[in-house]
């Protein structure tokens, strides 16, 4: 890995493009998954809350894609990136593409992802790129709310009824193997760190674990084993079977009518 950096097999622009794509894909796919709750939320208020969060993610993704397309400089726009890439070209982690499951599963995933995003964005605010930094700072405010919203629900479901406790415990047990990908790093990250654009994700891994452990404990939940087998491959385009179905639904209209416009 280090050798690749020294030889500079990838340009700074290519690496930055890939970096932005990873961030954006996580948020777009999770936003799409969350949007599936629209009209199906457990109560009206929560339905609106989840749709709000979904829209936040899609908004974050939209501005990241727009910037990524600009950095790439190949005359693609954000719609090209979203609608005309296949699953193997998507760079999101596997956790975000898993089906929405029950409400406990959705909340458990929201909490894990929001707490991770919290630390990631907090660190990324110091990036050397002004436009990227501005974006991150703006989105960080919303991420703080996502964390608050999901944390409060974890506490209530965990320390709620026997049924809610069991459901969210099962959800955390099932999701745990997908948390390893949060901290995946390769030569892209190394190069971005060298340029002062990206951050060392492993630097806040223990902080993230402490936060998650504290909240799960407070919610009377058992902490799954951090050292278990961890799923991998999402950042390299190796996905679960679920992403293809999600993309088929999301992309089919645009691909069937590529020239369609909003009017």
């Amino acid at each position, binding site marked *: 890995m280090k050798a690749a950096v020294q030889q500079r097999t990838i340009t700074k622009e290519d690496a930055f493009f890939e970096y932005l794509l990873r961030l954006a894909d996580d948020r777009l796919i999770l936003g799409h998954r969350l949007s599936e709750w629209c009209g199906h939320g457990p*109560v*009206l*208020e*929560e339905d*609106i*809350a989840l749709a709000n969060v979904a829209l936040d993610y899609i908004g974050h993704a939209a501005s990241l894609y727009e910037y990524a397309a600009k950095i790439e400089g190949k005359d693609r726009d954000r719609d090209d990136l979203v609608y005309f890439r296949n699953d193997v070209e998507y760079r999101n982690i596997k956790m975000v593409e898993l089906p929405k499951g029950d409400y406990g599963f959705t909340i458990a995933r929201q909490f894990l992802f929001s707490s991770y995003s919290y630390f990631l964005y907090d660190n990324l605010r110091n990036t050397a790129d002004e436009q990227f930094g501005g974006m991150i700072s703006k989105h960080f405010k919303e991420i703080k709310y996502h964390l*608050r*919203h999901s944390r*409060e629900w974890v506490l*209530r479901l965990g320390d709620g009824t026997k049924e809610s406790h069991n459901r969210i415990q099962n959800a955390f047990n099932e999701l745990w193997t997908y948390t390893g990908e949060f901290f995946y790093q390769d030569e892209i990250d190394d190069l971005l760190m060298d340029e002062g654009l990206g951050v060392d994700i492993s630097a806040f891994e223990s902080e993230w674990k402490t936060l998650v452990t504290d909240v799960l404990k407070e919610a009377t939940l058992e902490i799954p084993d951090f050292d278990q087998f961890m799923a991998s491959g999402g950042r390299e385009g190796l996905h679960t079977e679920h992403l293809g179905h999600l993309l088929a639904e999301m992309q089919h209209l645009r691909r069937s009518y590529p020239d369609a416009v909003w009017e």
Partner: protein
Amino acid sequence: MRDLERCYNLYRKEILNQVQDDENFNLLEIMSNKNKSKPNKNDTQGKLWEVFTQGRNGKPFEHAGSLHAPDGEKALENARDVYTRRNEAVNLWVVPSDAIIASKPEDEESFFDPSKDKPYRHPQFYHPPRVTKRRRS
């Protein structure tokens, strides 16, 4: 009340085929029990809360609407998501709906009618001196 009582006893006699003079019979108690709202077991939405939003610092809080939530903290979050999506507020209050003591429709006469024929309570009858008017403008 007598008539009601008589009706009720008649009803019992005819339908339930019971004796008229039941010493334990107390219409008032039955009426009040009947009016007592029973918790709906099918309602899993949580308690009802009233939401008040403040548009700008220093402005009064205004009633925005109501919502369901299991507790105060969640009510506050729900209020944020339901009532402040379009930049409506800089502050929020949530209050349990049952904490509000409200006037009843039947109070309208005694509460509000008396002020209807007292126009002198409005400030229109007071003419500020021209000097102060000019100074103010």
